[in-house]
């Protein structure tokens, strides 16, 4: 297992390298840069200022040199300075990462707390009225894009009821920046993200529980006189969770994509928001850093899924 994980981690290096090269090339292929747009008409010689800024950022050098320079700095842990926010990228990433993690953890927690129990409940009495009604309702929610859910949530909870804020990751005024404040701001985007995918989990759980419930060893467990609850939780539940558990790792990709869209919609200052702002402003160092962090998150997520798979299912061995 250790060699397997090592191999996978080593395999990420060329992948991340290729992604960084491509992102780098793409960024520079587009006409203009971060300094084209900030020119102030009151300046005497705007072009000279632009030149000076470009020179300071090294944008006048040949591309390979720029890439090499960036790579050298990046490997030693220096991600450069933001072109437009005038702060080190690392400083920007800190709070953004925190906010996105808050969002992701909250969303994932809602998914598990809502999704898995509903799936189990459905599987206990399959084809009952509850099963049909809840399955249909979940199917409808699942088919609603999360940005549309977000609009409805904002409409009801932010505008009509005014329970939760619809913008920003932290508030202003007293108590701003506390954990409660953070949670308060994260709830609506997290709920938008969770609602559409918790249906996936409950469907998955239900199908898996039913599959396992049909197996011979479960019948044997009933036959030897175990109580329904005991069979259900000891024999069915544990094995039925195997496919569900692996879904967690793969979810990271969805969470990343969802975070970019929802953070944009909610102006929630997380990684997705930072990335979008950087893209609007052609802020090269920030684009590079956020892109690579997203890629690492997805790659690690896939690895975690595969490893979890082996951990919960002793039949699987990677070698």
């Amino acid at each position, binding site marked *: 297992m250790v*060699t397997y994980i*090592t*191999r996978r981690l*080593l395999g990420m290096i060329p992948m991340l390298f290729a992604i960084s090269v491509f992102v780098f090339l793409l960024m520079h292929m587009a006409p203009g840069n971060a300094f084209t747009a900030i020119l102030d008409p009151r300046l005497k010689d705007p072009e000279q200022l632009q030149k000076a800024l470009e020179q300071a950022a090294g944008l006048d050098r040949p591309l390979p040199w720029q890439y090499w320079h960036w790579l050298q700095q990046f490997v030693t842990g220096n991600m450069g300075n933001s072109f437009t926010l005038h702060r080190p990228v690392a400083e920007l990433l800190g709070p953004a990462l925190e906010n996105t993690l808050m969002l992701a953890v909250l969303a994932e927690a809602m998914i598990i707390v809502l999704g898995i129990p509903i799936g189990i409940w459905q599987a206990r009495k399959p084809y009952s009225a509850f099963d049909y009604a809840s399955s249909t309702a979940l199917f409808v929610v699942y088919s609603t894009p999360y940005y549309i859910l977000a609009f409805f949530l904002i409409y009801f909870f932010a505008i009509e009821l005014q329970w939760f804020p619809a913008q920003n990751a932290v508030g202003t005024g007293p108590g701003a920046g506390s954990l409660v404040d953070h949670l308060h701001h994260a709830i609506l985007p997290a709920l938008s993200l969770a609602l559409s995918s918790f249906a996936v989990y409950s469907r998955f759980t239900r199908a898996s529980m039913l599959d396992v419930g049909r197996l011979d060893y479960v019948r044997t467990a009933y036959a030897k006189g175990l109580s329904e609850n005991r069979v259900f939780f000891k024999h069915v539940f544990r094995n039925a969770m195997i496919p569900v558990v692996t879904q967690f790792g793969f979810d990271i990709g969805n969470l990343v994509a969802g975070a970019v869209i929802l953070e944009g919609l909610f102006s929630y200052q997380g990684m997705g928001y930072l990335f979008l702002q950087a893209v609007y402003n052609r802020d090269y160092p920030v684009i590079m850093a956020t892109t690579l962090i997203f890629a690492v998150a997805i790659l690690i997520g896939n690895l975690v899924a595969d490893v979890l798979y082996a951990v919960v299912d002793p039949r699987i061995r990677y*070698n």
Partner: protein
Amino acid sequence: MSEFLLEVVDLKKYFPITAGVFRRTIGHVKAVDGVSFKLRHGETLGLVGESGCGKSTTGRMIVRILQPTQGRIVFEGHDITNLRGRRLRDMRRQFQMVFQDPFASLNPKMAVGDILAEPLVIHRIASRREADQRVCELLETVGLRAEDRLRYPHEFSGGQRQRIGIARALALNPKLIVADEAVSALDVSMQAQILNLLTELKRTFRLSYIFISHNLAVVRHISDRVGVMYLGQLVELAGKADLFNNPLHPYTEALLSAVPAPKREGRRQRIILQGDVPSPSNPPQGCPFHPRCPKVMDPCRSQRPSWREVRAGHWTACHLYEQ
């Protein structure tokens, strides 16, 4: 024309085992480890052995869907071991295969007529109308009806499907058919029917068979000569009567003793082998059978016995018969 239809010389198939961070090859599964035999025109050679002994792998190498690691396959004097592309495709007309599982070996989405016409189309043997004509003939040859060509595989029973598989193998008028456990998935009454069909076809079309099976009774019924495989190697090869009446190799003896005798011959003592078949990734030194052999001697442990013709037409690899 060569005296032999097929010559297999020192055929080997090793599958690499990899490990570690960089997937270094740390060993091989020696699925087939040096098999040699010759097949005459019109002959049926049975290959028997336990599962995992390499008999199916051998069959698949002969029909060239597995590339041998080493060794040569010579068909009518042509070395076909490394043929590729067009020349391999042309050569394929000569040797065909019948598979074990009649439910898996027919494409469920193709009508039977299309399955049977496909070889003709690929090799540009027949026009559409001729192909249809030929398909009808083929179906009747294997005991089905011409109308069946419009139906789909799921509408047939296992035995009927196996007939379709045989018809497909016959479509190109091959000289050799490799039958890989061709009757093992069928119930006994059906087995007999298919075996009789194969025997009849052999006579009509002057076919040769390599008949791979783990079922001794079936092999005995259909074969002219029988080869016994153990752990990727041939341990004994002889005419049917010779092999079944006078087995030389201790493994063959043990294998035959496991067959319940239909008549009260009472002559054979059941030989119970100790231990399990060793892993083909780490076969024993010397004779592969020595850890379980009741007649094991010193040289068996260190030297691999040579493949020799001990009596006329009776080959074996065993130290008991060296010199």
